[in-house]
């Protein structure tokens, strides 16, 4: 019997009780998985037969011998399918847990390799037990259930700006690169198969078209594999988006080529007319997919405009619309992946402006969860299917395929980069080219496409599958494992932490305007010109339609600024809140951890408890929460690992440092005459109306979770101490004696100071 996953090192873990418990759990799951189906019945057919027999026996006479009433009965067949599915998912998740408990292992071997190994083991076990291995990597299951979550996750969090800026490059790699790969591999394979006419070779039966078909299946870079491996190596954004974008966009090419060659493999020849139709088909597939996705995206954005009263089902719209976009595209044989990407990318800015903070968090976590489980399952299934699948090993074919894949990729990348660099401002260096070439991983999509092949048309199907699996294994294991040390060795630029300061934000926008102006002066309708036009169009028409209420008017800079203020306020509170002013210290605490894990120290609790009337209190909370959501717009969380690690935990040391600095600065504050002001919004402004609308049910004041928000409000409030000398005269006389204490809502002429702050914070909406 297995003792958990084969890759566990029993010496490393198992020392502590919880880890032993986890190990035990995994063992139990394995046992359950393998023993139970055996115990219940030996095979589904026999089970079914038995049932039928039973019924037949029972029907003729009602007065059969009465058995004792079964108190406990085992009816596996009843729940078999959902049970097995759940078991697989549970296994996948436990594996993920297990891998991260072994620190050394997860840094050397990428997760994908480990998962495939686990799959191999599980498959081997099932085979040993004599059971028929379930056809887990059934193409329908793969394409309809396993693939969409990953792609949606990628599409929803796609960083649009770098993607658009490099779109030309990405398209070149995706379209031309994949075509080149397909024809090069297919053609040369055919040539190789034809050599040695003297020795009778099963390969001689291969014709050109099946070879080309095989070439087109194996040539596409796989997004799942790329995501899985690239996430762990944290290379710079440019390379990541190039390889990842290529893996997404080449789906259209793959779809067209696959269908083209599959159709014509039957016919045997391809004419020029077919070629032309193929090109047209490609355009239809690609653009059609994007169009379908965009339509659903807009529908989703529009729907989200009206969900202010039913916040609970907001995430559902996002998921369902996206999935329907995928299915609709697949229905027309358009590119489902591109539809999904387009849908996610189009709807995101509008949906995020409309939905509540909680919904946003829900969407993010659900997407990450599903895509994570999906990816894990895919790799495990790859392993299982390898053990199961009918294999026809042919040394020549397989080795030539592997070599050709590598060679084609390298030649393709180098050649294309040479051409592309003529048009790029920031050229791709040799190091970049190497990483791009090396990152061309193949994965489960290739395998599933191979699986779909019809045995009658393609007698060489098993050989194809074997070769595909070998290539996938090679790329995932060899390339996946070695890419991290290579990145270190070559000193490729790593991803920079996204700690943008407000200066960067302002200056970047400034430079955008500047460049647009210069382009206009030069009379050149370049990148910035069209981007500017698009932004204007967006602001004028689209945002009004798709975003509810006053949010449509908020400029990006304001949103960013508010986010930073929020960050700092909460950070201040977390660090013990000893200072009045969260002055010049730029915040680096990620906003992902709004509810801190450590309970806030007791002292600030006593000092900072606001005494506001409940109604206003929770209006404030609502506003704050809705503002915290703004932070999402800037978070580049397309990396699954950004959710796994908790940057807040890491940054606690920084917080203590900051606290010290803040105390120093507090002394300086007294001298500073300029200050963060707290403006008031006029009472009938849209912001006030929205704030009023946003107030919903009362939230009990003393609940511990709320206290963190209390502190943040109180901290913001404390900034009120001194007001800017030339501040707007809507500030009425306020009690200037506030330090960390908050007096009861002082005046009621206009909204109390605390409310003001929060309204100020939402004033941009």
């Amino acid at each position: 019997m297995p003792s958990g996953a084969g890759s566990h090192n029993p010496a490393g873990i198992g020392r502590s009780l919880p880890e032993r418990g986890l190990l035990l759990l995994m063992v139990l799951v394995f046992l359950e998985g393998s023993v139970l189906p055996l115990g219940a019945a030996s095979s589904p057919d026999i089970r079914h037969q038995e049932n039928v027999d039973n019924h037949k026996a029972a029907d003729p006479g009602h007065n059969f011998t009465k058995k004792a009433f079964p108190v406990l009965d085992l009816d596996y067949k009843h729940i078999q399918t959902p049970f097995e599915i759940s078991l697989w998912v549970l296994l996948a998740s436990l594996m993920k847990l297990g891998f991260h408990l072994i620190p050394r292992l997860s840094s050397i071997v990428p997760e994908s390799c480990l998962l495939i190994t686990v799959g191999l083991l599980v498959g081997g076990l099932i085979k040993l037990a004599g059971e028929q291995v379930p056809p887990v990597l059934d193409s329908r299951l793969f394409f309809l259930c396993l693939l969409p979550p990953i792609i949606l996750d990628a599409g929803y969090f796609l960083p649009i700006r770098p993607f658009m800026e490099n779109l030309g490059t990405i398209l070149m790699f995706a379209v031309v690169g994949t075509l080149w790969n397909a024809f090069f591999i297919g053609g040369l394979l055919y040539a190789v198969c034809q050599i040695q006419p003297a020795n009778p070779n099963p390969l001689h039966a291969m014709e050109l078209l099946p070879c080309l078909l095989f070439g087109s299946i194996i040539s596409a870079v796989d997004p799942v594999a790329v995501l899985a491996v690239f996430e762990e190596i944290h290379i710079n954004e440019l390379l990541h988006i190039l390889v990842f974008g290529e893996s997404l966009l080449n789906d259209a090419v793959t779809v067209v080529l696959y269908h083209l060659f599959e159709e014509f493999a039957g016919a045997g020849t391809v004419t020029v007319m077919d070629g032309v139709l193929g090109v047209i088909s490609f355009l239809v597939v690609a653009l059609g997919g994007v169009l379908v996705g965009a339509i659903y995206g807009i529908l989703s954005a529009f729907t989200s405009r009206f969900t202010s009263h039913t916040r609970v089902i907001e995430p559902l719209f996002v998921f369902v619309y996206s999935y329907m976009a995928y299915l609709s595209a697949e229905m027309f044989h358009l590119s489902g992946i591109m539809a999904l990407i387009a849908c996610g990318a189009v709807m995101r800015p509008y949906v995020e402006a409309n939905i509540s903070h909680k919904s946003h968090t829900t969407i993010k976590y659900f997407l990450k969860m599903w895509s994570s489980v999906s990816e894990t399952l895919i790799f495990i299934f790859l392993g299982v299917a390898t053990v199961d699948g009918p294999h026809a090993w042919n040394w020549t074919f397989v080795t030539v395929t592997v070599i050709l894949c590598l060679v084609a990729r390298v030649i393709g990348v180098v050649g294309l980069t040479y051409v592309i660099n003529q048009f790029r401002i920031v050229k791709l260096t040799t190091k970049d080219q190497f990483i791009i070439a090396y990152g061309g991983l193949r994965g489960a999509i290739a395998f599933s496409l191979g699986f779909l092949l019809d045995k009658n048309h393609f007698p060489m199907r098993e050989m194809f599958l074997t070769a595909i699996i070998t290539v996938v294994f090679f790329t995932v294991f060899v390339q996946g494992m070695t890419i991290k040390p290579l990145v270190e060795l070559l000193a490729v630029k790593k991803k920079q932490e996204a700690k943008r300061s407000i200066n960067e934000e302002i200056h970047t926008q400034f430079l955008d305007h500047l460049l647009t102006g210069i382009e206009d002066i030069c009379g050149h309708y370049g990148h910035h010109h069209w981007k500017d036009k698009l932004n204007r169009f967006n602001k004028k028409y689209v945002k009004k339609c798709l975003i509810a209420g006053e949010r449509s008017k908020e400029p990006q800079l304001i949103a960013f600024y508010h986010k930073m203020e929020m960050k700092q306020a909460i950070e201040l509170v977390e660090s013990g809140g000893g200072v009045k002013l969260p002055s010049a210290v730029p915040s680096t605490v990620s906003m992902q951890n709004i509810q801190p894990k450590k309970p806030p120290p007791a002292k600030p609790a006593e000092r900072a408890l606001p005494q506001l009337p409940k109604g206003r209190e929770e209006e404030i909370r609502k506003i704050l929460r809705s503002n915290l959501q703004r932070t999402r717009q800037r978070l580049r969380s397309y990396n699954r690992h950004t959710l796994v690690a908790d940057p807040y935990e890491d940054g606690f040391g920084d917080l203590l440092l900051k606290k010290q600095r803040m105390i120093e600065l507090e002394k300086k504050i007294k001298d500073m005459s300029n200050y963060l002001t707290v403006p008031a919004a006029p009472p009938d402004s849209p912001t006030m109306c929205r704030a009023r609308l946003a107030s919903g049910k009362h939230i009990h004041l003393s609940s511990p979770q709320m206290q963190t928000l209390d502190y943040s409000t109180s901290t913001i409030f404390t900034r009120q101490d001194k007001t800017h000398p030339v501040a707007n005269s809507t500030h009425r006389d306020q009690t200037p004696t506030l330090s960390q204490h908050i007096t009861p809502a002082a005046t009621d002429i206009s909204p109390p100071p605390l409310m003001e702050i929060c309204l100020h914070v939402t004033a941009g909406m």
Partner: protein
Amino acid sequence: MGSSSSNMNHIPNAQELMQETGFSAAHLLRLYERFEFLDRDGKGELSPDDFEAVRELALNPIGGRIIEAFFPQGQETVDFASFVRVLAHFRPNDPNRKDGAQQDQANSRTRKLKFAFQLYDQDRDGKISRNELLQVLRAMLGIQVTEEQLQSIAERAIQEADLDRDGAISFDEFKKSLEKVNIDHKMSVRFLK
């Protein structure tokens, strides 16, 4: 190439300009054509009105500043050489070129940043004061935000960037705050290669 070389003769000091700015002959020619197009009354010089005739510049929040950047030190007109020199700042940095001191190249990172800095710093005192920053913010954000918000943002920006606590942003602080941004990419117009 006969016609272009005859056109090149119209351009005064073509060779020197090419040397100084790093533009190729083809680019210089294109810019000269654009210059002539903007110069509606054929004076051989551009005045601010000619720039303002470019429609899109009117929509640009900092359009006025950009126009002013072409007219240094209160000059009324700008000739072709100055026009080209300003635009040379936006030439993409060519990492493979190895002629002369890279630092002095018109399109080096420092020079690009200096150009941007001067757009902020209208009074040319070498620092971006609060007011100057406020003016830029006001121009960019327009009527969508209140005065207090602008003040807060300006305040915050200065606090973040101002390392020597003098209440204004010097050129070095400006450079430092943009050290993570790929200026070559952000301040290069692809047309000018």
